[in-house]
Structures are given as C-alpha cells and as structure tokens.
C-alpha cells in the first residue's frame, strides 16, 4: 500500500514538507512540484528534511524556477509530467499535502 506524497509549497514558507516527511513510510515516494521543488536545493536548509526519503522533483517546475539539476541534493530523481503520471500509477494512493 505505498503512497505518493505530493508537496507543492516552499518548505521555507509552509509546513507541508515537514508533515509529509513525518508521515512517509518505507515504500512511500515523494514528488516535489510547483514551489515544493525548492526543498531539493543542495545547500538549502530544508534539504535535511529529505534525508533517507525517496524523492523526485518535477523537471518543468525546476526549470521554470531557474534551478539547474546540478544544484540538487544527491539521489533525487527528476521526472517530467509523464513520469508524474507513472508515479501516481506505481503507488496505491496519493496524498497532496496542500
């Protein structure tokens, strides 16, 4: 029963990333979209919240914000919208941390 956690808010403005991390379990995956992508920037304070979690980032949202993939923490996967759809399929359910 793996779950996909969608986080769409900046971790510097909203608490949703922190909550999502606290709920995530073994097989769960997290996808950062919209302003949520900032969480994956390597030298940012929020990056620590992602440690040990299976995290992906939506590429189009990353590019829009001028964040090169070389700026991301290690182990993060970049996906496009088709990859987003695949992640929804690969997990049994989705929680959007609005």
């Amino acid at each position: 029963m793996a779950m996909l956690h969608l986080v769409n808010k900046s971790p510097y403005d909203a608490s949703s990333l922190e909550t999502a991390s606290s709920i995530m379990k073994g097989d769960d995956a997290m996808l950062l979209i919209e302003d949520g992508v900032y969480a994956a920037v390597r030298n940012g304070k929020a990056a620590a919240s992602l440690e040990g979690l299976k995290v992906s980032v939506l590429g189009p949202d990353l590019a829009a914000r001028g964040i090169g993939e070389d700026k991301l923490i290690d182990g993060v996967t970049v996906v496009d919208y088709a990859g987003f759809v695949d992640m929804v399929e690969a997990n049994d359910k989705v929680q959007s941390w609005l």
Partner: protein
Amino acid sequence: MSEIKKFMYVNRKAPYGTIYAWEALEVILIGAAFEQDVSLAFMDDGVYQLTKGQDTTGIGMKNFSPTYSALGDYEITKIYVDKESLEERGLSLDDLQHLVWEDEDEDWAEKDSIRLVSRTELADVLAEQDVLFNF
C-alpha cells in the same frame, strides 16, 4: 466496483481563515450517503477545527462547528486527532469538542469518536486507506 473503499478525509487547515474546513465538511456529509468505510484525520492546523466554544458572531460567518457533533449520526465514528499537533499548539483534548456516536450493536451505548494518536500511529492509519481526500 461495488466493494467498499476505505475513505480518509485528511483535515489540515484552521477553520474560518479559509473555507477549506467547511467545504471539506460538505464533502464528508455528502460522502456519508455512499456507505464507504469513512475515517477523518485532524492534524496540523486541522486540530483547530474541533475546538469548543467557537463564536463567529463578530466575523459574520456561519459557525459550522456544531456540525462535527452530528458526524456520529452519519455513522462517522473514526475521528483521528494527531497528538503532536495538539501539543505543539498548546491544546489538549479538553479544548476540543467531545464527539460521540451511539453503537447500535451495544444497545446504543455512547462511545467516543475521537481517537488521539501519535504521528507514527497516524501514519499507520493513513497507510491502510484506499482513498485520501486532502484538505
């Protein structure tokens, strides 16, 4: 498709500041007619929805907090409240409404609807669900 699904409504927003809490309740009430296996979770600012003594006369909005005490009549009996969210906010169960339901199988004995859970327990409950409604 006639199998019963485990529905979970995840409530994370404070009441009145935005309409999400109230429009979530509207879904919950209508959803009750579909006879799924329904649970509610209140976490983060969502725990504020259940506070006692809400009085909205000064802000001109409808006070929808009495609706929570009617949930038992809709056979919504599993209401999970995140303990850590309460504590962080300086609240305890005493600050919340006492929500109950009547158990048909035990001669309509009144039972507590609220289940105070740790974050870890809440994660387990969420993991068991089929569908999550996000508010």
